[in-house]
């Protein structure tokens, strides 16, 4: 693993570099996993959030660096995924050019898969062709003459069935011999108008780029106005003029410059595949009858709802026992370690409340992440995910999201962490970005305790259970109702990324393999713990220190003295001394709670809360609510425990606690213009709930957004949501006061 960390791409290693290239859904990743086993390294390409999967392939005594490039249909670089492919294949931007390209093709759909191969033939990199899913092709009555194909393409062709590991050793041998005696793809004969256009571009752009464009790159500039190479040209005006004139000559020879490239490639492939592919009769797709049911207006919708119900239930409820176990483990670890550190209370608190609680706070997300990725892998591998996206796309298309946003948003109702991670299934960068930003608005399960506490304390006693239930229901849609219009606003006015056409290929239905599913779960779980987990842990230690320090001992003295003074009013000295001697007496517990409360009030966060209380005053929050709200920024569920401490009830209260409820009902303003009035009026209560619904009070979500996008978007999301939450709470309070 160590050696892999400094593996390929940016540095020149002595090992040969082999890149796997292919369309999505060809079994490329399965093959990659099969070839590398668990000897792989996942990172992001520098500066962008495209996953870089590299691994080590050992054949005999030699080892080879294997790179799994993102799946793409063509070299048209619209998304970041495709740009990476183009950059790597072109050896641009510091990437090491691969020594060998291994094309993974879906044998059931050879012609379309060969388009990418045909485009790459211009690069002149040695290649090897893998015909995967040969079993499915055979079932569909497709016979492929691999030898003839190899002769026509000019490179070796190997047949495999990746899911069952068939043809793997042949493939490994073929890779080794292709590296020893490389052969390149035979090039496609371009019509004159294209060759001339390329010549024009190469001659004209020679001076504006530091290095000359190759023929392959000129083709990209010619056909793809967004290509990375076109972006690299500084003189845009000159570029546009050249491209326009080249397009004119293409048009003059009767071709549409927009589609000419594909048309020419396909014409070439038509003749290339003559006699290579033999289909017995019309191609019978195995999935037609299943689709008739699963995509049916009525049955398809019902099945979709049931499938999503199961996914959601398992995330929401079935993960609970596992999460309970992790909670138990965390407190067991705290209880175990704590006695060893009693002599150094600061260290004790750091280890128990900072580090162990922080690690527990990371691990607590694992069950949901693993469960969600189990389902995602299952749904994708069976081929249902594309169908699900097809069914619900219309619900999301109006606001810039698409059908693939459904699963991430639904999962975010349980927890935004797995939800944000699930957006990896969205290939459109704009839709993915928007989905990530909307995910934290979904009412996650950590908001529920806050709703239950406030509704149970203030709404149910006044308006009865029916209204209470209705309010709880409505609270779950506040975020969604705001998120979708916001997504629309963001997409329409602010995001300057191009919208991609939402096109789904409906893959064949397949029986998933457990091996693949577990690999996916392991990969995601590991990535979360190692990459996001460390940031979340750092967050929780930071917040712990803000709540713990400065920890001036005089705070404890003062709290004790004021407690004793109060006690002395009603009790004799001896009585007090007796009660305090017994460490488990109720008096002692009350005293400890008073001290904890005093410490939190005097902590940096407490002082900060008091200082910023005026900011929350327009929402009717007093300093205690403000501190509660602030302390729940790392994780919103913390508010219950913090309120317990602040209101002298100890940290062990939960949302059903009668003590906490009665304290809240009796809280009154002690100073200021509202002196004597109750703090928790209906507008304040509703305001707090809306605040929690809209606010990004989750350090883990911030960390995961930074991981999936970058810190700028994470900050945008954090401050944007916090501002919105404040606005919501203020509006409700101010309007509520007028009514």
């Amino acid at each position, binding site marked *: 693993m160590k050696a892999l960390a400094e593996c390929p791409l940016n540095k020149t290693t002595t090992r040969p570099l082999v890149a796997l290239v292919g369309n999505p859904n060809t079994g490329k990743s399965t093959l990659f996993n099969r070839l590398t086993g668990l000897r792989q390294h996942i990172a992001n390409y520098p500066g962008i959030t495209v996953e870089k999967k590299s691994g080590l392939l050992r054949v005999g005594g030699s080892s080879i660096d294997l790179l799994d490039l993102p799946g793409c249909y063509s070299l048209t670089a619209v998304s970041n995924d495709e740009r990476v492919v183009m950059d790597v294949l072109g050896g641009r931007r510091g990437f090491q050019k691969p020594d060998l390209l291994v094309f993974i093709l879906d044998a059931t759909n050879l012609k379309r898969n060969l388009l990418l191969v045909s485009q790459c033939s211009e690069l002149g990199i040695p290649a090897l062709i893998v015909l995967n899913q040969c079993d499915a092709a055979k079932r569909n009555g497709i016979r492929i003459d691999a030898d003839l194909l190899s002769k026509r393409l000019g490179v070796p062709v190997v047949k495999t069935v990746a899911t069952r590991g068939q043809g793997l050793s042949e493939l490994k041998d073929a890779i080794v011999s292709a590296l020893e005696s490389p052969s390149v793809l035979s090039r496609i004969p371009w019509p004159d108008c294209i060759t001339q256009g390329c010549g024009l571009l190469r001659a004209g752009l020679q001076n504006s780029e530091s290095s000359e464009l190759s023929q392959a790159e000129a083709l990209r500039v010619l056909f793809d106005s967004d290509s990375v190479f076109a972006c690299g040209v500084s003189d845009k005006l000159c570029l546009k003029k050249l491209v326009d004139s080249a397009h004119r000559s293409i048009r003059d020879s009767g*071709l549409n410059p927009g589609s000419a490239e594909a048309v020419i490639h396909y014409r070439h492939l038509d003749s290339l595949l003559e006699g290579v592919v033999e289909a017995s009769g019309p191609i019978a797709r195995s999935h037609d009858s299943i689709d008739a049911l699963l995509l049916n207006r009525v049955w398809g919708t019902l099945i979709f709802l049931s499938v999503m119900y199961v996914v959601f239930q398992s995330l929401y409820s079935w993960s609970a026992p596992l999460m309970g176990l992790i909670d138990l483990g965390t407190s067991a670890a705290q209880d175990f370690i704590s006695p060893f550190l009693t002599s150094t209370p600061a260290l004790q608190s750091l280890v128990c409340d900072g580090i162990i609680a922080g690690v527990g706070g990371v691990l607590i997300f694992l069950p949901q992440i693993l469960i969600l990725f189990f389902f995602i892998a299952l749904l994708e591998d069976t081929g249902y995910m594309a169908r699900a996206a097809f069914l619900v796309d*219309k619900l999301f298309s109006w606001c810039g999201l698409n059908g693939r946003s459904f699963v991430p948003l639904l999962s975010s109702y349980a927890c935004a962490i797995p939800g944000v991670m699930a957006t990896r299934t969205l290939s459109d960068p704009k839709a993915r970005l928007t989905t990530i930003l909307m995910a934290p608005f979904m009412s996650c399960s950590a908001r529920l305790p806050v709703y239950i506490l406030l509704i149970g304390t203030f709404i149910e006693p006044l308006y009865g259970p029916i209204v209470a239930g209705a309010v709880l229901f409505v609270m779950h849609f506040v975020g969604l109702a705001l998120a979708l219009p916001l997504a629309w606003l963001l997409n329409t006015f602010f995001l300057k990324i191009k919208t991609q056409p939402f096109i789904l290929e409906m893959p064949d239905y397949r029986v998933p393999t457990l091996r693949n599913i577990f690999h996916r779960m392991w990969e995601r779980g590991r990535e979360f713990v190692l990459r996001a987990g460390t940031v979340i842990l750092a967050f929780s230690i930071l917040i712990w220190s803000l709540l713990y320090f400065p920890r001036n001992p005089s705070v404890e003295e003062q709290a004790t003295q004021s407690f004793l003074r109060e006690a002395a009013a009603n009790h004799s000295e001896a009585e007090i001394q007796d009660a305090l001697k017994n460490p488990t007496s109720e008096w002692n517990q009350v005293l400890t709670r008073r001290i904890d409360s005093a410490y939190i009030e005097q902590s940096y966060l407490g002082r900060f809360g008091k200082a910023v209380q005026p900011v929350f005053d327009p929402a009717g929050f007093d300093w205690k609510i403000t501190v509660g709200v602030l302390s729940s920024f790392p994780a919103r569920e913390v508010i219950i425990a913090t309120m317990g401490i602040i209101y002298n009830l100890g940290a062990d209260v939960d949302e059903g606690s009668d003590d906490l409820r009665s304290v809240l009902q009796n809280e009154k303003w002690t100073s200021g213009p509202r002196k004597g009035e109750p703090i928790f009026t209906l507008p304040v209560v509703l305001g707090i709930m809306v605040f929690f619904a809209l606010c990004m009070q989750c350090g883990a979500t911030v960390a995961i957004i930074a991981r999936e996008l970058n810190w700028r978007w994470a900050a945008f999301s954090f401050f944007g949501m916090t501002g919105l939450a404040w606005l919501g709470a203020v509006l409700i309070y101010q309007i509520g006061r007028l009514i």
Partner: protein
Amino acid sequence: MMLGGFDSQNEIGACTRTLDSLSVGDCAEIEGIVTDCDRANRMASLGFIPGRMVRVTRFAPLGDPISVQLEGQEISLRRAEARIIQLKGEAQ
């Protein structure tokens, strides 16, 4: 040539049929793609090229996107994208 060039040199009238106008079960031959560089290239790469037959297999429950069969592959696309794909003649 009102939109500045099509795949085919044939005269195309104002009432050109596009893929989004077909009903479920309809089959037609692709005539070309409306010039629109970004999307045209992408659609063409997927196989929407002149001369090929395309058949609409179904609409999504909410009417959009639509699912079509093209060269043995099942592809789903939104009506907005279907609109840039021009078809020949009448339904068969």
